[in-house]
């Protein structure tokens, strides 16, 4: 049995660009040293700004406006985190974000897969035109046409500022149902499914919708997971459209809330504002640490699918 070491030896490295054979040479060992040093360096660069954010948000106003710079605050006042949280009712932003993300994920998976199925498997008349049109949407950012889009949404009555319900999220959610990238991911996946399965089901007299829900979807778990996680991170960070649509402060997501708070008058004290930013990133970090394996596998999967 192979035992796993916490600190494995280079001569056990079997695969990769440089393996045990290469590491017999001293010069390659030095090269390995560089690899580790570079990684340490990059990891530091990746983490440092977050530490800086934490340190700065804990400073007092006079430390920020003073003439000398210190990295760490002189005093730690963790009580102000709770005070600021309740002052801005930050929990509400999180609840809104949660609802927003949930709806976005459902719409992203449901509608894009439906269209992809229709195009890739059913292949109706004109499906090539659809492909080209969708590709157009892939190249051109949606927010480029935001003004006409907002007017459309408004014409449907979704933008009435009196709406205090999550119905206001509907146009934003549905927007995720028209995502060219997710559509293409689904389409490529479905195209690779064995044809015989679909044909067999159709022979049994099942309707297309039935084939889709009973046969195709259960086979598509991996791709559903990928799109779901993409949609999750994308909707969490989504800015311009929610910023324009979510006018009531009771409905705003964390990202929109932060941006709006940056504009209030009188402005917030700098450390307090940085603390709010910190509060806005902590959940993502926690979610990531819990689901790191799934998320990173998807991240890596992105490349091999393209």
């Amino acid at each position, binding site marked *: 049995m192979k035992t796993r070491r916490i600190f494995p030896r280079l001569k056990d490295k079997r*695969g990769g*660009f440089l393996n045990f*054979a290469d590491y017999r040479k001293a010069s390659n060992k030095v090269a*390995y040293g560089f690899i580790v040093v*570079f990684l340490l360096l990059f*990891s530091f660069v990746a983490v440092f700004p977050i530490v800086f954010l934490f340190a700065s948000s804990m400073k007092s106003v006079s430390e920020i406006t003073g003439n000398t710079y210190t990295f760490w605050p002189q005093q730690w006042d963790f009580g102000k985190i709770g005070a600021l949280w309740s002052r801005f009712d930050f929990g509400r932003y999180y609840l809104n974000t949660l609802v927003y993300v949930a709806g976005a994920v459902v719409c992203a998976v449901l509608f894009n897969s439906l269209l992809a199925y229709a195009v890739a498997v059913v292949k109706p008349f004109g499906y090539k035109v659809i492909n080209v049109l969708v590709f157009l949407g892939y190249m051109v950012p*949606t927010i480029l046409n935001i003004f006409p889009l907002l007017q459309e949404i408004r014409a449907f009555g979704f933008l009435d500022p009196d709406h205090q319900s999550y119905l206001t999220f509907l146009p934003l959610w549905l927007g995720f149902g028209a995502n060219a990238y997710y559509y293409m991911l689904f389409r490529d996946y479905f195209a690779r499914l064995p044809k015989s399965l679909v044909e067999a089901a159709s022979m049994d007299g099942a309707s297309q919708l039935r084939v889709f829900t009973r046969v195709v979807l259960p086979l598509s778990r991996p791709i559903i997971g990928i799109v779901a996680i993409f949609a999750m991170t994308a909707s969490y960070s989504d800015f311009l459209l929610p910023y324009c649509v979510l006018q009531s402060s009771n409905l705003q997501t964390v990202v929109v809330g932060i941006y709006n708070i940056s504009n209030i008058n009188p402005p917030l004290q700098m450390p307090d504002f940085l603390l709010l930013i910190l509060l806005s990133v902590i959940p993502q970090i926690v979610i990531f640490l819990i689901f790191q394996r799934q998320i990173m596998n998807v991240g890596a999967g992105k490349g*091999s699918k393209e």
Partner: protein
Amino acid sequence: MIVPLALFAFFVWVPMGRNFLLSFQNNYFDQEFVGLANFAAIFADKTFLKALGNTFLYILFSILIGYLVPVFLGFLLSEVFHFAGIFRVLLYLPCMISGIAVVFLFSTMYGDSSTDLFNAIAIAMGGESHPWKGSTSLIIPLIVLAMTWRGAGSTALIYLSSFQSVDDSMYEAARMDGASPWQRFIRITAPSLKATLITLFVLQIISVFQVFYEPLVIGPKGGPLDSSMSLLLLSYLYAFEDFEHGRSAAVAMVLVLIIALFTLAYRLLLKVLSGEKIIKRRGKR
């Protein structure tokens, strides 16, 4: 199928078509056709010309700064033998932070007074303070740097899987032939990475066209002296600050044109490359 098609129509195609028409009209509500007046107006606007030039600067710097870092990171991650999991987590961490939080954070670090982070570091290392985001020549590289900080980890994972998908036996065969690591890299690693490299090159360029809230927040509003203004941000400001919907749409159409040209170039490139492959294969036979 009708429903998702309707969604695409509603969110993508109709607004795009409407914007196309709008670029020849005075504004959204009057819908009076004014010919090419909007285009004439934007090309007479110094800010637009500046933004047009900036677009290419953004592309240049995003390739210089943002393109190769993830390749390097991917290689390091594929080769490291100790604590590989921890390194992956640390490098991926910034990708989880929303773009808005990133720009506010970096905007603070790039501050131009001597008590802002970058200057504090420069002074601690015996240097002088610089204006950083207040500098017209540094602002775009700094914005790209912030974007790279956030995006490099996830792109690196894509390269990681490409590096890992290289067949070990090919390396083994090369070793047998006595090829140096450098030769191995050129002959085996680089070719098998080509497809990913090209795809991500294009994605990198597309992502530049999406630059919007980065200059809005860090600039701020495309500053200093419009030196970080992007076409998307300008289009937004025309519509929402100046109430010039027609001009906003005209800027959008210019951006669409640029994107279309890049897409064509990309397709052409793909054709040339795949053509090459066929010729090589024939040659081998």
